[in-house]
């Protein structure tokens, strides 16, 4: 197929074919990462700006390394160092970056829809690195890539996403992409963090983890995000662990070949026992490695679309 999007703002708007095309493109870049010389000239002479309005370490580093390995020039801007603190609007900041002939703007922002807002207003490619509680498309893609790599397929698999779904952009990107590619998705967590409205997105909602674990092929655990939450959503971490933590004992309910995934950062002893996170079923670090290949693919595809 022919990739025609200058932006990647979300997985909601991608077709199954487009998602598969990104994953296939990532295969080639994954191989590059194993070479002695890890750099290819695909984006030589292009400029990428990482505009991170919300703090992030792993995603920013992953995008930066992905761009460097494609031979692009990279500039990092954080909220504290940008004119946004002086009252400049996001659109004006982005237009200034565009006026400096930046080819790709990678945006992390705490407002849902921030990337959707910028994309049609700029010629520069916009790659969404997380917008509020809405989407984190490259995380969704790297999760799919990892599942496909380990299981050989996505279609027909049963995936449980466990934890704070309400506030999770990772969950939404996974839901949109997994259901498009034929996986069955069950969301698990407390009723306050996994509201029933999610069933309208074509998934199943459960509040009983022990019922779900035996039948799934993948569990994707989400971090309980203290910084986004008000105390009324659940009584405390102790109760969360009691009801939903993937303890060693609960992990025994899983099929032996069930994958354990986590987008990081992990709260060891909260959503997942330390031993389980480090156990044989865990593919958490494979996700990180694959993230680099997937982001190289996304930057290569979006950066290569003529404008």
């Amino acid at each position, binding site marked *: 197929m022919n990739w025609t999007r200058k932006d990647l703002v979300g997985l909601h708007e991608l077709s199954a074919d487009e998602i598969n095309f990104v994953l296939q493109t990532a295969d080639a870049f994954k191989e590059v990462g194993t070479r002695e010389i890890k750099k290819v000239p695909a984006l030589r002479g292009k400029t990428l700006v990482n505009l991170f309005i919300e703090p992030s370490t792993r995603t920013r580093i992953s995008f930066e390394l992905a761009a460097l390995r494609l031979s692009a020039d990279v500039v990092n801007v954080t909220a504290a160092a940008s004119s946004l603190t002086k009252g400049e*609007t996001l659109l004006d900041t982005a237009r200034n970056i565009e006026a400096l002939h930046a080819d790709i703007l990678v945006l992390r*922002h705490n407002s*849902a*829809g921030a990337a959707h807002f910028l994309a049609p207003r700029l010629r520069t490619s916009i790659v969404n690195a997380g917008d509020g509680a809405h989407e984190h498309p490259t995380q969704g893609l790297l999760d799919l890539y990892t599942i496909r790599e380990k299981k050989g397929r996505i279609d027909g698999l049963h995936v449980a996403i466990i934890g704070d779904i309400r506030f999770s952009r990772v969950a939404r990107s996974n839901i949109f992409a997994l259901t498009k590619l034929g996986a069955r998705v069950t969301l698990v967590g407390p009723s306050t963090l996994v509201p029933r409205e999610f069933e*309208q997105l074509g998934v199943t909602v459960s509040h009983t983890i022990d019922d779900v674990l035996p039948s799934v092929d993948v569990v994707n655990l989400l971090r309980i995000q203290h910084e986004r939450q008000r105390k009324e959503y659940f009584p405390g971490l102790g109760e969360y662990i009691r009801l939903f933590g993937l303890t060693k004992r609960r992990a025994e309910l899983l099929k032996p070949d069930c994958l354990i995934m986590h987008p990081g950062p992990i709260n060891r002893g909260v959503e997942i026992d330390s031993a389980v996170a480090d156990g044989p079923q865990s593919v958490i670090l494979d996700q990180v490695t694959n993230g680099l290949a997937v982001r190289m693919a996304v930057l290569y595809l979006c950066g290569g679309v003529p404008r």
Partner: protein
Amino acid sequence: MTTRIRNGRIIDPANDRDEIGDLLIVDGKIADGIAREADEEIDASGLIVAPGLIDIHVHLREPGFGWKETIESGARAAAAGGFTTIVCMPNTSPVADSPSTIAWIKQRAAQVASVNVLPSGAISRNIAGEELAPIAALAQSGAVAVTDDGKCIQNHELMRRAVEYARMVGIPVLDHCQDYHLVGDGVVNEGRWSTSLGLPGWPCAGEEMIVMRNILLAELCDHDIHCQHVSCAGSVRLMREARARGVKITGEVCPHHIALTDDAVRNFDTNAKMNPPLRSQQDRDALIEGIADGTLTILASDHAPHATFEKEVEFDRAPFGIVGLETELGLFLDLLVHKPRAIDLPRVIEMFTVEPAKLLKLNSGALSAGAPADVTLIDPDLEWTVQPERFHSASRNTPFSGWQLKGRAVRTIVSGRTVWQLER
């Protein structure tokens, strides 16, 4: 000066009149009889001749926010929408919580406004919901109602005292119904789209809770409480039951709440962001049903102008609201009369004239002899396209750009003088 409006369909619900005929205006007042020679002849063949329309929910933004709208530009927009009288909201800067601000608005309107501008005053000082504004002084200086619109008094005891006090003064209390705890930082209707888009949800229970509160207080205080921009099915159900028992509770509907549903926010369009938010299809249907059965009696725009640069931001940071004066009549005619036939044309006019005049105790909304000649001529079948660039309002924030509508005002007459007519 004598004007004769000839051969129009005169719809004057207050006087139970619906017939083809002539309307005579002498020296700015409606006159009896048809025989005299007129200085000015207006051919109204094929048009509706209605009492001047009243919009009881308009933000004119002055004093304080003149880049969004001014009393002058807002009044021109009203005239172009067929309105001869508008009630402006007190959430200006300064807030209209003192007689001097009310007096300033009236004076400014007398100088620059082409239509009648009636100010409303705040219920609480600085619309902060903590202590009463001087409601009697506001009424004496010309406020026709009190409201904290945009905000909502959360302290039920304070609201109770405000309603009791307003009863003594003889003006109604208008309320923006929003429970702060239930709504939190909600920006779109809680449902499928808030879930999918990851935007904080604004549940209907947040409106219904306060509608219920208002019903209880209207009953307790035996006084009029008017629920502004009703958006939820549950609110309609609660009000229907209360009105059947004779409780003095009324409600208004805005065109956007029946023209659109919350799927209009799917692309994060900030022109689909208003408070209360666009709701579900089921809520929309319940509003139309409430209009049809007389539960909801008033139509209003919640005209809320904002500059383009203010709306060109991230969705959760954009201000709530859209302009409405110039699309309101067309949308209501299209959505209530032409398409679903929920109500007939005379009822639409009644909801824009008699009903608001009754709530606010205004001496307008009728074509009675001796009344100020505020008249709106309407072509109910004229097909037109919404073109924001041609709005008279200072702002363009509308989700209806490009909509094809059927029916609109073609001429607006205030005290016998034509203040606007459609260019053909």
